[in-house]
């Protein structure tokens, strides 16, 4: 797959990842922010985590589905931001900009239909909790 295909796959997967469920305590990320997060994901995360985060191409854990959500369900959204900005990418942690990380969080966890929030400050994630958008 080339980068374009990967990007397309990631963008196509976004609506699948974000099932139709809007939970009040989650951050209502905007569609634009989710899309930009997909772009960052393709550029920075796909190599290890797979095109949609569903499978590990190399040695990154899945970022979707049961194995992901069993560890993240109910935790502060800020915690996922902190995990990513602190430990990713594994080959050079710390290189991601704050905005890139927020956008990736939006891609991985944002609900559908998308909201209106365009988050630029990680402090805005402090009070929100993560909820699996595909959970019944």
């Amino acid at each position: 797959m080339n980068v374009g295909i990967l990007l397309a796959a990631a963008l196509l997967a976004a609506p699948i990842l974000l099932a139709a469920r809007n939970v009040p305590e989650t951050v209502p990320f905007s569609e634009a922010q989710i899309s930009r997060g997909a772009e960052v994901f393709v550029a920075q995360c796909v190599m290890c985590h797979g095109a949609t985060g569903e499978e590990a191409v190399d040695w990154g854990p899945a970022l979707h589905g049961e194995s992901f959500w069993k560890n993240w369900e109910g935790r502060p959204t800020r915690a996922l931001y902190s995990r990513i900005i602190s430990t990713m990418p594994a080959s050079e942690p710390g290189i991601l900009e704050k905005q890139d990380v927020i956008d990736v969080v939006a891609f991985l966890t944002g609900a559908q239909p998308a909201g209106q929030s365009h988050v630029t400050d990680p402090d805005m994630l402090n009070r929100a909790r993560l909820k699996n958008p595909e959970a019944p």
Partner: protein
Amino acid sequence: MRATTENSMSFRSSARLTLLVALILGVYAGVAQAKDGKARHDWPSFTGSLHADRYSPLKQIDRTNVGQVKVAWRRAAIDASVLARWPDAVASAYFRPTPIALDGILYAPNGTGLVEAFDGATGETLWVQQIPGATLRDIVGNSSRGVDSWRKGGDFRIFSVKGSWLYAINGHDGSAITGFGDGGRVSLRRDTPSNLAYFGINGPLVVGNAIIVAGNGGGNAGDAGLRAESTPEDIRAYNVESGALLWTFALLPAEGQAERASWGGDSARTAGTMGAWAPLSADAERGIVYVPTSAPVGYYGGARPGDNIYSNSLVALDAKTGQKLWYHQLVRHDVWDYDVASAPTLGRITVNRKTIDAVFQPTKAASLFVFDRVTGVPVWPIENRPVPASAVPGEVMSPTQPFPTKPPPFDRQTISEADLIDFTPELRKEAMGIAARYTLGDVFTPPALRGADGKQGVLVAPGAWGAGNWNTGAFDPETGHFYAVSTTIPGVYALDKTESERSTIAYGLLGKDPDPPAETNYGIGPRGLPLLKPPYGRITAYDMNRGEIAWMNANGDGPRNHPELKGLDLPPLGTVGRPVPLVTGSLLFVGESSDAIYGEQGIAGPSTFYAYDKADGSVLARIPLPAGQTAGPMTYVAKGRQYVVVSVGARGHAPEWIALAVGGDAQ
């Protein structure tokens, strides 16, 4: 300052007192004398010593009391002061560091790689590494496996690799040694047009006045092996005082070197993701450093014909100059990802009444090579045995691979139908069905094109995870026993043609099986169980004076309590993962590794830390831990008491250090 009266004490009375204290401590702490005459209360290297032996002569904790060990203290992976200043700092659950212990004080990278010093008796913080003008980017990151130290008079330094930096830290207070490099650190970025980042997870090794640094290689290529263009992570040495680069040893032989011919065609211009990501070791007295190197890039080697030296090798270098003293390539033209992934362990053995200072090199392929570490001459002959050729277009395999005639392998090197799981007839039948989808191959059977002969590739033991890995070895100089800890996970090698424009290697492991069997921690297999017969994780104890196996045990329960095996009353089947051995004056400790180690190997919940009788492998104690191990255990004495410290973490458990000791309060 001490009182004047104490300072003015006569030499004779001072010496007498010192002797008395030493005797009392020696008896009280059960401190043994190592064979070189030096008492070892310390754990001076993260692999135990420069010999990477993971051995301590301590035996205050012994077979009589190991059943009573309790948690003496626990310490979170990141000091609270760091989190107060940097709340986004998060420790990866894969908590790699093993502390070193010097005079009762522990030094280790924390969960983001900042060095912390803490009291060995209490776990309380003494200092945290200071980085002048630090930003979040300097603070966050991964922990390495450990640090090393250097002392000259009152100048006491801790060296640590974090991100793309080699740091020199004042061992007394954690401040930067500003005269070292650029304000206390040296950039490890590579001399490439893109100023490629260093990528490594090992700590540095100090040998004489040289700090040796090796890395993973690859240049962000990962293990997927789809791009030929990659840059080796060469071995480098820096001066302990100034940080100046002393030498570089290039893993891709330079033009003019005979070994360059092992890279056919144009491949030397691009290929070669080699590094040395397993721990190094050194013979400090002789000034030799031992480097285990990793594989070249890709599971298809058509674009890099030849043996591809110095990949998959054990290389002995002069620590002062970086000059190669000798080397042995242990896998030729690797297409299995059989890195030499274990530390080269040094030890003295006696073979046929001849004393040999040896180096023991385990491999992912389950062989244990033994060399005279000075000359590089094999202690037992190595045979070049014929191995299968490849039918993949353009792939030319080495016709032979090296096998030691002694000692025997420490894990499976073959698969046949007779090796398939047979706990029940149903499981056996399903295993046969799964196995029938592949060509079963012995070690060094090359990858096959998907669909060739109607199969979904070859199934080979060991697979890319290796039987041996960074965790594998420990050596007991008291008995001459080498302990190899290994895992049995066969690997599927099925090549598909690459299609991405990013891929510059014609074939890769793309996982395009249209109906893949379920895969678990144990690889593919029926109903969530392994495909092969047990054990799945094992300890092999070798008598290295004879080159023979003394005993072999499954390590851990493994899947014995799986619902499909209910009522079968099975013995321990062995747990997969990367458990690290620790051998002491009386015991062998081996735990179970956690699911934090990539690949979802290991266990997710509480784990067991086993204390074995090192002579025969019988279990003496099962010590419960809240999560699996992520690094090697270590031991030392602080305030007269022996401690064993274990690094633990899991995807569902915050990483931490746990100190075990006999007596005291349980937590």
